[in-house]
């Protein structure tokens, strides 16, 4: 049912139209018929009445009738002028003996096949409709002809009937005409929209933005669908770019770790092996400096351990489990040593946070200090942690060149600047946020905010 929208809509318009057409046609017909009956009985009455009166007259009168035309005494003329229609008296030879006023056009409508005693309808040459009846007197000596023009007797009703007919016709035609735009502006656009949506690969394609043929409701439906599909595409693209980014970061990380291992421990172990071999060679030759090689081998082994430890620390710092204050202090000292700038941090001892919070602050701190050093060329970075209502805040401030913070982290990320975007997302995962205050020449202040969760409640 719902699938046959066109059928339903067309039937919805056509059926009532046809019903109206049939009912109205029937009504018009009935009305016409009723009017006919009225007109017939009217003219029959009129003629019979006249014929009866003629029969009452004396035979003498009848004999001399053609010469004594005193019919006025019967009130004929008054009759003729007070009621619609006209009467005429004709003798058996067909001679007109009397005619009321208006009966002059008897000749124009007279046809020989008019039956006697029964009213019928005829039309004159102008198309005007008459009902006419011919009634004989008792001895068939005379015939009374009575006729009335419909227009005269039933004028308004006839006109009403015509008007009604025209109205119904207009209604039928207009509803048929209405089906065309319905089809062109509703059905066809709706169908093509349904078709398009049906074959749409969500997240890949979008429907046409507009269909100028359609009615405005369908157009706005289309534009809503267009917006939705565009949003889906954008969402998919965003997801793809995220996935790409993640894969890329993973590969970069692996490459970096491999490089670190190659340049660090691998070289140191190689050097260790070399020194051991040198020791073997020199001691076999009885050289006095063979002990130096052992000493160098030890150094190389120590370097290996140092480098491996650094690598571990970098991958996942074990000292994070020492708590927020210790972890941040440790990283500040390491960064300070490593970068050769002042890095301090002030953490109240009584703030205890779950480990993922500590990790989050730790990574943020690392990235922030690196940014301050690399971009801001700062020589001092200071961090402080404090409670503020329901939040624990970590603020990091540098004395570097400052910058114009971009509100669009997504764009930064796409351009390969992931530091700030990562910070924001990291904090976001813990329902926190990141605020950046900086302007060129002013240094930079990063404020990280996380909802405070006491470690005991975790």
């Amino acid at each position, binding site marked *: 049912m719902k699938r046959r929208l066109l059928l339903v809509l067309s039937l919805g318009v056509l059926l009532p139209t046809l019903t109206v057409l049939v009912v109205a046609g029937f009504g018009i017909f009935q009305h016409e018929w009723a009017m006919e009956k009225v007109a017939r009985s009217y003219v029959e009455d009129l003629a019979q009445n006249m014929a009866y009166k003629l029969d009452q007259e004396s035979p003498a009168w009848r004999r001399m009738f053609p010469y004594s035309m005193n019919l006025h005494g019967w009130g004929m003329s008054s009759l003729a002028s007070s009621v619609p229609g006209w009467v005429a008296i004709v003798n058996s030879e067909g001679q007109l003996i009397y005619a009321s006023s208006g009966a002059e056009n008897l000749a124009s409508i007279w046809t020989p096949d008019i039956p006697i005693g029964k009213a019928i309808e005829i039309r004159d040459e102008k198309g005007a409709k008459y009902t006419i009846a011919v009634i004989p007197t008792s001895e068939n000596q005379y015939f009374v002809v009575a006729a009335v023009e419909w227009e005269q007797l039933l004028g308004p009703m006839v006109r009403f009937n015509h008007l009604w007919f025209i109205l119904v016709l207009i209604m039928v035609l207009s509803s048929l005409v209405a089906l065309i735009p319905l089809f062109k502006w509703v059905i066809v656009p709706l169908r093509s929209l349904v078709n398009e949506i049906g074959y749409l690969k969500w997240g890949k394609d979008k429907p046409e933005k507009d269909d100028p043929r359609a009615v405005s409701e369908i157009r706005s439906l289309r534009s809503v669908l267009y917006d939705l599909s565009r949003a889906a595409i954008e969402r998919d693209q965003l997801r793809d770019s995220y996935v790409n980014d993640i894969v890329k970061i993973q590969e970069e990380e692996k490459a970096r770790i491999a490089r670190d291992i190659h*340049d660090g421990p691998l*070289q140191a172990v*190689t*050097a260790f092996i*070399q020194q051991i071999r*040198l020791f073997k*060679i020199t001691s076999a030759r009885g050289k006095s400096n063979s002990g130096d090689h052992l000493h160098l081998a030890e150094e190389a082994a120590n370097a290996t351990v140092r480098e491996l430890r650094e690598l571990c620390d970098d991958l996942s710092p074990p000292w994070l489990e020492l708590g927020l204050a210790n972890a941040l202090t440790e990283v500040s000292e390491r960064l300070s040593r490593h970068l050769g700038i002042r890095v301090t941090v002030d953490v109240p001892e009584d703030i205890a946070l779950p480990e993922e919070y500590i990790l989050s602050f730790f990574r943020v701190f690392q990235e922030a200090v690196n940014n301050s050093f690399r971009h801001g060329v700062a020589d001092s970075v200071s961090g402080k942690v404090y409670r503020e209502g329901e939040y624990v805040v970590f603020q990091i401030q540098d004395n570097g060149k400052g910058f114009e913070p971009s509100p669009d982290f997504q764009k930064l990320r796409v351009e390969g600047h992931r530091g700030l975007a990562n910070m924001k997302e990291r904090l976001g995962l813990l329902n926190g946020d990141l605020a950046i205050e900086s302007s060129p020449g002013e240094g930079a202040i990063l404020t990280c905010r996380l909802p405070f969760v006491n470690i005991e409640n975790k």
Partner: protein
Amino acid sequence: MGVTVLLADDHPLTRAGLKAYLETEDTIELVGEASDGDMAWDLIRKLEPQVALLDIRMPGKDGVTVARMIKESTLPVAAIMLTSYDAQQYVLASLRAGARGFILKTATPEELSRAILTVAKGGLYLDSEVAQAVGEKEFLPEAISVREREVLLLAARGFSSKEVAGQLYISERTVQTHLASIYDKLGARNKTESLLLGLKYGVVTLEELIE
């Protein structure tokens, strides 16, 4: 007077070790040390050592690049690639770039000096670890046909089977048949190995490879 050698390695500890290796050999004379590619290139042009030991991974120019520059400059310097990586593709890339030898940093002092002396005499030296990966040492390969040699050389220059087929006006299938036969004869498992083994057994020469 020994063979003059330049040592280029960015890692101070391994460089010190290698230097000590070389110093134990009377037949070898270390004439210069470089800690990056650019420095290595400068010293090579200035000192024109007989042999340049080049670390593949170095800041500035990497070892393969320096080897290529030596080849292009036609300086009478034989390059030996020195690396921690044992991927055979590195060996091939180095050889294509004109290096005459390939040796791992963990090689023994004896191997290192043998490598230096071999390339100084115009020979080709592949590290025993890399060479081991490509088959038995004492193995006399069955002679390969002229056609097979052509196929091997083109394949070695990096052409695909289809391209080789096009150049020799034979079908791709025939190329594959030839390659399979070459692998069999040399005891190789793949193109790179067959090439390295071909070089090792003297079936093909380095010059043919890099032309």
